[in-house]
């Protein structure tokens, strides 16, 4: 049988190690898996101590695998494989620690709240879900009025500056459901959806978002007005 001839000679084992070393490696790897699992499930340690400990066990596990399964450092000198592994680990530490470090500082210096506030300020959003964003925090300017009377808006156009206010007063006997944008496409103004204004009541908005915008009564077609906010 030709296969017998090609069987590798015993003095040139492709793989080192014995059954005993594999069994020891296997048992150690089981221990280094079950201990951190137990620590996490039983909540014996907490917080950073726990995180550090389980990462420590992962590193121990790595060493066990490298020594008992990958048989590193047992090849002839020079230990190219081991040197290459150490170089790789060095690069990995730079990439991983560096990424986490930089991203942590990025988060620290510019949290999600900072980003939101910056966008809100740039876009002139006055409030997000009822919370003022800080735009026009130095106070408001002039107040403009739009009266809703006989199902018409008077005046139907207002020119204002940023941080002025606009008061929409309902002088009719029926409520007006005031929304921003067009009938077909409602667009919230500066984070405001609009409001159903009952007879005799009003609604005040702060003009933070720049540009020309329209408002209308969503329950009827002909009532609409526009306003332009300049810097």
């Amino acid at each position, binding site marked *: *049988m*030709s*296969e*017998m001839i*090609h*069987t*590798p*000679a*015993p003095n*040139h*084992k*492709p*793989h080192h*190690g*014995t*059954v005993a070393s*594999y*069994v020891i*490696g*296997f048992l150690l*790897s*089981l221990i280094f*898996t079950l201990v*951190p*699992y137990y620590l*996490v*499930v039983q909540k014996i340690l907490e*917080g950073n101590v*726990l*995180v550090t400990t*389980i*990462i420590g*066990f*992962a590193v121990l*596990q*790595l060493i066990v*695998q*490298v020594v008992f*399964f*990958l048989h590193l450092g047992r*090849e*002839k000198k020079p230990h*190219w*494989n081991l040197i*290459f*592994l150490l*170089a*790789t680990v060095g*690069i*990995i530490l730079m*990439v*991983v620690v560096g*990424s*986490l470090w930089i*991203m942590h500082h990025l988060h620290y210096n510019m949290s999600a709240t900072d980003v939101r506030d910056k966008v809100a300020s740039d876009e002139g959003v006055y409030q997000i879900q009822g919370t003022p964003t800080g735009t026009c925090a130095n106070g408001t300017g002039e107040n403009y009025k739009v009266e809703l009377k006989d199902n018409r808006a008077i005046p139907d156009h207002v020119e204002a500056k940023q941080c002025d206010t606009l008061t929409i007063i309902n002088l009719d006997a029926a409520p007006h459901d005031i929304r921003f944008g067009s009938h077909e496409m409602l667009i919230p103004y500066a984070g405001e959806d609009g409001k159903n204004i009952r007879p005799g009541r009003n609604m005040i908005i702060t003009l933070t978002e720049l540009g020309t915008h329209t408002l209308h009564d969503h329950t009827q077609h002909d009532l609409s007005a526009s306003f332009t906010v300049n810097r």
Partner: protein
Amino acid sequence: MATEQGHVAESHEAQANDRIGFGFWVYLMTDLLMFAVLFATFAVLRSNTFGTPEYHELFSLPLALAETLILLTSSFTAGLGMLAAGRGDKVQVLTWFGITFLLGLTFLGLELKEFSEFIHEGYTWRSNASLSAFFTLVGTHGLHITSGLLWMGTALVFIWKRGLNAPLVRKLTLLSLFWHFLDVVWVFIFTIVYLMAFA
């Protein structure tokens, strides 16, 4: 004279094996670098969940432990298979690597089960940055396991048909390196993705 020639041929083969082994090791290290980048991505993006549940509500820790134990055991049986290959014991090689193959298949099945459950519940790689990073990291490892299984399957068929010749033993040596390597990567996935979600 004849023995001398045989000796020379063998040392040539040993040198070739060393070179191939080192070349494969270089591949493994570059693969490790890729996994390191995926780990870093996951670590940075893991909290960007955009409204999906926290990982400790999503993961089943016993399942992750089962996957880990299965893969550790398969690494062990692959090692025993290599010892059998060193002895030239074809039946034991087929047995141990057969067990390794089945364990690897079970691992892959459990991983796919977990993925399909997530997707079924509506948590996919498209949900948010955190889940994208999770699926990429764990899925890349799963793809490696899949290719390892294909490699192992074909090697076992060849060994079964042709017996243990030197090229096949060399193939098994590289394969077992690959398999132990995937075991190491999984240990870090188990720790950093799964255990740390509950820490």
